[in-house]
């Protein structure tokens, strides 16, 4: 009996994992990333993280001379996990919004692209209050798109919220959704250009409304680590100045994602 208790305690403690981080001189930084948001971040078949966000994160770390570990986190828990100190910064295409600024600090933007709707080809759906009436619109939960559709069309639309953008794409492909609302670049590369999205097309204008979409995608850091925000800001400026940013940009896109 006593042995059983001892064994259990040992195992539970081991399970907790004592990954005690070192003091905050930012030689070691843990970065929260998502992995289900191509082409910005995705998992390869053998489980490796790839994408624009990931490359940027590595470039920034190299610039700061820090050793970085990537921590994969579902989008739902992105900010709560930062607040719970599961990692030190979020580099996951997170838009800089007023609501989020209440909880976390942001760097300046590292890219900005408009959001757009996409519809099934031939559905003829138009983007207006009447056109969206009763339509099933897929968005990723807890994103600016979720806020935008809820705020602008909320009561008329059947909003389907997904934990990841990939899940929304899957349901769109099988015909559970009438519309998608997402970042236009992510949707182009992650969906419309793929086999799943071959029957879908953009519709309506691009949205950059600051009220919902804020000031572009930034790096989120805990408010108590203002020094880390400054380091990241400097590093962003540096990689934009030395051409690293442009190289990564060119690897994924044939236009400038920084400007929006």
């Amino acid at each position, binding site marked *: *009996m006593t042995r059983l208790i001892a064994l*259990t305690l040992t195992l539970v403690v081991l399970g*907790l994992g004592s*990954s005690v*981080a070192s003091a905050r001189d930012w030689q070691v930084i843990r970065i929260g990333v998502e992995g289900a948001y191509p082409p910005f971040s995705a998992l390869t078949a053998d489980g490796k993280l790839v994408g624009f966000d990931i490359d940027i994160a590595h470039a920034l770390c190299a610039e700061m001379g820090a050793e970085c570990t990537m921590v*994969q986190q579902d989008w739902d*828990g992105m900010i709560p996990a930062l607040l719970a*100190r*599961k990692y030190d910064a979020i580099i996951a295409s997170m838009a800089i919004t007023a609501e989020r600024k209440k909880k976390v600090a942001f760097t300046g933007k590292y890219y900005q692209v408009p959001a757009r709707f996409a519809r099934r080809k031939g559905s003829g759906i138009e983007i207006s209050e009447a056109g969206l009436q009763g339509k099933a619109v897929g968005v990723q939960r807890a994103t600016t798109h979720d806020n935008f559709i809820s705020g602008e069309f909320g009561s008329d639309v059947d909003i389907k919220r997904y934990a990841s953008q990939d899940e929304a794409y899957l349901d769109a492909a099988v015909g559970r959704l009438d519309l998608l609302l997402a970042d236009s670049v992510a949707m182009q590369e992650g969906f419309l250009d793929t086999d799943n999205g071959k029957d879908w097309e953009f519709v309506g204008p691009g949205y950059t409304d600051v009220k919902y979409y804020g000031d572009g995608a930034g790096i989120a850091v805990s408010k108590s680590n203002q020094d880390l925000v400054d380091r990241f800001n400097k590093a962003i400026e540096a990689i934009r100045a030395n051409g690293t940013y442009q190289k990564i940009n060119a690897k994924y896109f044939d236009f400038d994602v920084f400007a929006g």
Partner: protein
Amino acid sequence: MLDLHGYLPLILKGTLLTVEVAVLSLLMAILLGLIGAAAKLSGSRGVRLLAQVYTTVIRGVPDLVLMTLIYFGGQILVNDIGDRLGWDYVDVSPFAAGVLTIGFIFGAYLTETFRGGIMAVSRGEIEAGHAYGMTPRQVFFRITMPAMVRHALPGFSNNWLVLAKTTALVSVIGLHDMVYNAGQAGGATRQPFTFYLLVALLFLVLTGVSDIGLRWVERRYSVGVRKA
């Protein structure tokens, strides 16, 4: 029959994780269950009340909600404690959260199972122990506990089978168990049904094998007991 497009190793890796989570949380649940049962049978009203609140809350709130709560809330709690004790940072990983939650939930169920088992041990057997000059400690470990095991086994078996199935929920907090991996494989191959069916069958194997094993144990512990 089933074309798995080379995803079988990924699924089996997940199966291993599922089993790990299940076994570790079972150990934790046994520990909590014994503590809980002792608390419920304790002389102190406060302790009994605490145990009652524990079991009532656990049975009143869905596993999934508890798991989400512990995954986020648990980390905050650990950080608070850590700050006070001067630790730097202890990570509550999805794995730890999963094990802790499931262990915590089934600790409540096992509390009832063990309590029932202890109460089913006949007064006479215990009195006989005292009558032969055993200390209360000896009576508890030599008489009550072994006799309790037999009474608690059917409920225990049942709890284990439910626990094994409950591990599927860890996929929702992002742990790469077999359900999560089946989702990945299903999405990539566009054959979600195939992969979820495979995982369902693996669960049937897990519960089936456990069932056979537990029946064997129950038979062994019923030696010397006449079947009604």
